């Protein structure tokens, strides 16, 4: 974690992440002793630490600095850690896979929309993705949100407008067993109540499946690379596709080594494209 410019002070969450990583390493070190032939090994079950620190505010963030010798007035902060199971971690962790719009708030634009200070304030209320931002703003009066978050209503409206615009963030080539590739287009706001129209290199292609965050299309046999256009209800999003990696073996049908069955497992060529 980068140190604060003025002092050896660190944001609380970064310090806790670093400390958690240290506890993981300590646990690994204890577990390694079992491999050296020791009959008894130990694991760290609970830990609490009481630290003498000073709280400071740097660039709008609360940071911790340890008390130096002879420095009076330090605060005492207690951290308690206990072991938790993988199931408990998963239960309490935000799943990006379930988020319908996992873009970061920063993807909504630069300082003209939400600046660093606004993003930090949104993080403080638990908003880190565009999907969370949309849920926060859904049905809310932007003026009330201005009063709550402190971000000017014009910028909130602009951010909300941008958050609902369709965008292509990437695509993935799925190769079917028969050798024909399908193109999975990822993004946000790509589909609504009506099915979007998709064009590859200017030609309409069949849309097999459409969800707000991904669309599955069937490229034509001559499509190799070009522009993706998704005509969604809220506008048009563009990106680029490249099927050249799968088109070359398609000309000469590939045979999987060993069992002689063509393309025993679907191949995936994944790439990120910033629109």
């Amino acid at each position, binding site marked *: *974690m*980068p*140190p604060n410019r003025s002092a*050896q*002070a*660190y944001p609380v969450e970064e*310090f806790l992440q*670093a*400390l958690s*990583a*240290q*506890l*993981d*390493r*300590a646990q690994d*070190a*204890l*577990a390694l002793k*079992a491999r050296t032939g020791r009959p*008894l*090994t*130990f*694991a*760290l*079950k*609970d*830990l*609490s*630490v*009481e*630290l*003498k*620190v000073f709280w400071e505010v740097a660039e709008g963030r609360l940071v*911790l*600095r*340890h*008390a*130096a*010798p*002879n*420095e009076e007035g*330090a605060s*005492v902060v207690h951290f308690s850690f206990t072991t938790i199971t993988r199931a408990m971690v998963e239960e309490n962790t935000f799943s990006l896979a379930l988020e319908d719009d996992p873009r970061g708030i920063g993807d909504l634009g630069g300082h003209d929309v939400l600046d660093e200070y606004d993003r930090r304030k949104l993080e403080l209320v638990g908003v880190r993705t565009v999907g969370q931002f949309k849920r926060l703003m859904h049905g809310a009066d932007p003026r009330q949100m201005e009063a709550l978050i402190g971000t000017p209503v014009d910028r909130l409206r602009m951010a909300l407008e941008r958050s609902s615009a369709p965008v292509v963030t990437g695509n993935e080539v799925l190769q079917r067993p028969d050798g024909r590739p399908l193109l999975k287009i990822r993004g946000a706001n790509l589909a609504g109540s009506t099915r979007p129209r998709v064009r590859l290199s200017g030609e309409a292609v069949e849309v097999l499946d459409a969800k707000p965050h991904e669309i599955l299309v069937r490229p034509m046999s001559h499509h190799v690379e070009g522009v993706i256009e998704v005509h969604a209800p809220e506008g048009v999003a563009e990106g680029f596709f490249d099927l050249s990696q799968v088109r070359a073996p398609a000309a000469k049908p590939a045979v999987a080594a060993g069992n002689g069955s063509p393309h025993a497992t679907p191949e995936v060529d994944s790439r990120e494209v910033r629109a």
Partner: protein
Amino acid sequence: MIAFDAFLPSLLESLALGSGDERDGLSLAVTEVEIEIPIEHRLSAEGLHAEAPGTRLVTGFKSHSGRMRARFCEDGGED
């Protein structure tokens, strides 16, 4: 001071976690250890650095000791 991830195992390493030999007819093994000690600490980019305070050395500097309590259990054992 040393990194906290090295400090914790070294604390455990410093303890005798058993005594006697089965061949003598009796042996004792420790199955749970709880250590509560004062620590001198420093925050760093890697997390925490710590050491046990040098209580016998008077330096003229009054260090701000923190405190830590760690409970180690036999691996695989129930709490």
